[in-house]
């Protein structure tokens, strides 16, 4: 029992991290599936999720839940605006793949630093969703972790239902399987792309709110989370929702064990080594298909 306790704790924390990482990277997967685009600014969306919550909660003195919802709504609208202003015209170009990387990199740099310019570089924090922790025998789990797990699972399940049961969700899956065929049967690609970008921004924002109490809210967090999300989506296979889910849980559990036995510092190198190892065996990731 004495030996098992840390292992079970690590597994619990791995499951929580996995659910959180799945929400965090799902936006990247969805937008790749619909638009064959890699969104460099996804880390900035995650970071701004925490930032807006900080702004509305600490600065505007709104209720915590209202602050979160408001931030996510703004991110959704921001996604629509970014599509209309930047990506709409670029999407027609033949080398959109690399153009999207470069343009969203520029956007990520702007968004990453805009917060510091507007509100100053002082480190900002937001409180946990619920404070305190639960103790059952030898195992402890914080209420924030439980809330993270519940919220993440609810989001993932409703996303799955949305993709399976609704017309828009079916259209999204159709586009990611065959965009030309989807166009022929009359699916409006432009509108769905805008919607998906907005949805992925909102998903990133939610994960940012859940992540923020673990870190500070600072621009570098955006880049670190982007790195994690990148590893998760390639590991699972670009554009595959199933793959992203599975790889988020695998890498989350790996992170929990590595940080328990080797230290936080080793997490990123271990992720990278595992990623390269998987790509050697399956170049497209766990569930990936060639575009």
């Amino acid at each position, binding site marked *: 029992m004495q030996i098992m306790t840390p292992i079970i704790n690590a597994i619990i924390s791995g499951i929580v991290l996995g659910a959180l990482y799945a929400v965090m990277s799902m936006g990247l997967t969805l937008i*790749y599936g619909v638009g*064959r685009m*890699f969104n460099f600014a996804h880390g900035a969306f995650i970071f701004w999720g925490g930032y807006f919550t900080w702004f509305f909660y600490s600065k505007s003195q709104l209720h915590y839940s209202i602050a979160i919802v408001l931030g996510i709504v703004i991110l959704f609208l921001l996604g629509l605006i970014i599509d209309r202003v*930047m990506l709409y*015209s*670029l999407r027609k*170009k033949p080398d959109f*793949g*690399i*153009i999207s*990387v*470069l*343009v969203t*990199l*520029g*956007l*990520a*740099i*702007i968004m*990453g*630093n*805009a917060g*510091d*310019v507007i509100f100053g*570089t002082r480190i900002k924090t937001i409180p946990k969703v619920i404070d305190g922790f639960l103790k059952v025998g030898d195992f402890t789990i914080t209420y924030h972790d439980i809330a993270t797990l519940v919220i993440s699972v609810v989001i993932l399940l409703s996303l799955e239902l949305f993709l399976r049961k609704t017309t828009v969700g079916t259209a999204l899956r159709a586009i990611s399987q065959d965009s030309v065929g989807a166009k022929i049967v009359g699916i409006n690609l432009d509108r769905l792309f805008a919607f998906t970008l907005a949805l992925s921004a909102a998903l990133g924002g939610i994960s940012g709110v859940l992540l923020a109490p673990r870190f500070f809210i600072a621009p570098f967090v955006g*880049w670190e989370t982007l*790195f994690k999300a*990148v*590893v998760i*989506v*390639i590991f699972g296979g*670009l554009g595959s929702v199933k793959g992203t889910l599975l790889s988020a849980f695998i890498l989350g559990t790996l992170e929990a064990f590595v940080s328990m036995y080797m230290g936080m*510092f*080793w997490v*990123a*190198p271990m992720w*990278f080594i595992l*990623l*390269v190892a998987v*790509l*050697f065996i399956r*170049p*497209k990731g766990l569930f990936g298909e*060639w*575009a």
Partner: protein
Amino acid sequence: MGDYRKIIVILLLLGLLSCPWFSGPYYTHLLIISFIWAVVASAWNLIMGYAGIYSFAQLAFFTVGAYGAGLVEVWLKVSPWFGLLIGGLASAFSGIIIAFPCLRLKGLYICLVTIAFHQVIPIFIKLGAKWTGGDVGLMGMPHYHFLGYHFGDSKMGYYYLGLFLFLLFHILIYKIIRSDIGLAFVALRDSEGFAESLGVDRQRFNLIVFVISAFITGVMGAFYIHYLKVATPRTLEIEIFAAAIMMVVIGGLGRFPGVILGAFFVTFVDEWLRTAGLIRPIIFGGIIIVSIMVFPRGLGGLVESLFQSQNLTSVESSETK
């Protein structure tokens, strides 16, 4: 037409050779930095613009070269001249390592794997802080000596060594672009299936371009740390990454002289914006977005379209010869 171009090149060369005698130390410094970044940007352009591989590992190669040379010189007391070669080889070796997973990948997958590689390098530098100096940086690299001339005294030595490397590597890159290897790169970029059906070995040429590009970048990394007297993981930060991307984007992907122009332009603009503080990265991001949306072919494309008619005639005349 050919003579006209030669005269321009010779005038530019004479200008660069005589520059440090009247430009003062500040502009000499900026020119040295421009030489370094121009080579890095051109090596990046070789792999991304000509070979069409979306590799974002260029600054990782640069840093690996810098630390490869620095570590060997500081701990093994190797001559700094030899250090340039070691830096290039260390970087080429990392190029092979990162190329192997990339050989089987395509498009955005390569972009993402190389970004992951870029993100992992500073962590390894911090893990080996005992030798690399961690965040503070690696210091104590010896200075160059050449025929009794000591490089630490003024910027002159570094200027001419930088100019030498700048010219050497650009001639090399130009020769590669104009050779059969360069033709294979472009063929694989523009029509992969067709090129492969004609017997162009994609994996072999991808490996070649990774190694060449990494080697050149690594040598410049080694030179860079001698000039700045310190190697830090800061070369991997997003601001420098953005600046390097800007050079390629502003210069125009796949446009050889354009990217050199882009490197000089960005280095000088970067310096003038130093006082802008927090706004500076935002201006960078804005420049990247605007230049992609408004000038998708970059400075190189702009210059080309200005000289379009002359270019056409020069191609025709060289073909009729």
